[in-house]
């Protein structure tokens, strides 16, 4: 016990009790306070999406009951917008670009971290610039490139850009994991006559946790991105969920039921995904950062 605390104890006044109570309960109260701030906006959207128009304005804070329950918003969304299409586009773009990113990033980081050769440091440096300089700054050039390749308004253009966007960070993190693999393992495989490609393939399962973490972390910015769909593939056929929702919301701003329903439809999938993987996600940041 410190001297100041002892002095305070002597006083043992009411104010001391309040202070000591605040000291123990304060942190929790602060966490509760901020959790309310974090969750309230999401709560109010989700509950109102399932109400009729009257109830949205009259009782915005209540959860829907038998009387106020309505799915009219979702019906409008289904009629007016092709959310199934948007979801398919988003899933295709996200899954394909992540799969390719993981494949080529593991290959590159394997070579960069497990072999010594001229230029390895330079190559690592070139890739790491991409972590700090956002790819958006190259928008003018990328758009010109996609126009030249006649790839505007295709999902392929998005996939290509998202691979380039996710690569630098993926290579950076994977390299630190690759470095931890014991050299004896690789030497043993080499003695057994395994080719370099085989050794790479053998190592992949060992870095599976890192693959999961990078997958999740590269996925969120791709799924949520508005910029590239807006610039490279704004057509109705290639719109992703984020762009589709943005266009729908802008158009139907006055139809409250539809707006709330479309917001709910866009929030729910990512929320479920997060709740399933949150433990793994946060664990991977905390453990990954300690290692590197």
């Amino acid at each position, binding site marked *: 016990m410190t001297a100041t605390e002892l002095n305070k104890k002597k006083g043992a006044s009411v104010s001391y009790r309040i202070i000591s109570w605040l000291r123990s309960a304060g942190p929790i109260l602060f966490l509760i306070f901020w*959790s309310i701030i*974090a969750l309230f906006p999401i709560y109010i959207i989700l509950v109102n999406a399932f109400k009729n128009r009257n109830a949205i304005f009259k009782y915005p804070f209540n959860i829907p009951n038998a009387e106020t329950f309505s799915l009219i918003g979702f019906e409008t969304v289904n009629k007016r917008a092709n959310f199934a299409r948007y979801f398919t586009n988003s899933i295709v773009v996200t899954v394909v670009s992540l799969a390719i990113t993981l494949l080529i990033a593991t290959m590159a980081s394997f070579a960069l971290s497990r072999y010594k050769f001229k230029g390895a440091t330079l190559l690592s440096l070139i890739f790491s610039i991409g972590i700090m300089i956002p*790819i958006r700054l190259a928008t*003018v050039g990328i758009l010109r490139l996609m126009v030249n390749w006649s790839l505007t308004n295709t999902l392929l253009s998005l996939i290509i850009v998202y*691979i380039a966007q996710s*690569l630098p960070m993926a290579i950076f993190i994977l390299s630190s994991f690759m470095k931890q693999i014991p050299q004896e393992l690789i030497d043993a495989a080499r003695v057994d006559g395994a080719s370099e*490609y085989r050794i790479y393939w053998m190592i992949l399962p060992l870095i599976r946790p890192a693959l999961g973490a990078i997958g999740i972390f590269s996925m969120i910015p791709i799924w949520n991105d508005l910029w590239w769909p807006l610039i490279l593939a704004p057509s109705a056929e290639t719109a992703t969920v984020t762009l589709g929702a943005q266009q729908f919301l802008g158009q139907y701003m006055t139809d*409250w039921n539809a707006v709330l329903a479309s917001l709910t439809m866009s929030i729910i999938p990512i929320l479920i995904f997060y709740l399933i993987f949150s433990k793994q996600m946060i664990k991977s940041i905390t453990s990954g950062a300690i290692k590197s």
Partner: protein
Amino acid sequence: MNATRKVRKPFPWHLVVFIAPALIIYVIVMVIPLLDSLTLSFFTEDPNNARNTIFVGIQNYKYLFTDKYYAPIFWGAFKNNIVFFLIHMLVQNPIGLLLASVLCKGGKIRNFFRTVLFIPTILSFVLVGFVWKLILSPVWGVSKTILNIFGLGGLFRPWLGLEETALITCSLISVWQYIGTPMILFYTALIAIPDELTEAAYVDGANAWQIFWRVKFPLILPTVGLVAMMTFVGNFNAFDLIYTMQGALAGPNLSTDIMGTLFYRTFFGQQQQMPNQTLGATIAAMQFIIILIGVVIYMIWQKRTTTYEY
């Protein structure tokens, strides 16, 4: 780690196979377009042939900085972007640090909070923008009702529609969303500090406040720098939230205009404004220069700062 080959092989083809795919995509889709875009800022469109460009030196930059009509817009966006960044630095990062320091005290219940507090960060700007637009809407009146609970209903204004408050409101919404990132990064840094260090300070008679500022804070300084750099880069590259909430015109009266929205408007054109690719490239080049300055300052600072290994 050490994989030097004793026997020299003719040519390490496997290295090419491993590195080429990543390097080719990265160079073709990121490096070359970035250089292309920087180069384009020194050209202007040929008025006789839209497909041609003419070299004009630093004419575009001169125009951006000094044109009677355009310069105020550019400097306005630049100034707004600085305000946008400062609000993040002064609100988002300190609260993120506070949340992290409360969270790292351990316990099951705090894991629950950690999951909850990160939720806004996983949502897209588009959703967040519309959600807050609805909540702040005077038509719905939700925020007025909440202020009324505290007897503050008289303070309600259509914050997004007023020139004086729109930028601050947008910045605070961005803070609301992004706070999870500094929180998690600070949290990671704080839990890595060995207990012995704080216990030793405690035995020496330091109180919690002193322990935080004299022991913990110097130890997490590298993370503080990293968060500041990430905030800087993210803010000078921001676009989605303003575009979603205030449109490409970044209203009211350009009061929420930042570099990203200015670039978009200039490059693609908006209402009466004709699209101007080369001037757009010039604005992107300015964003690049600003961000590069930030990154370089960070890297110099990082070299001089001691990183502690536990």
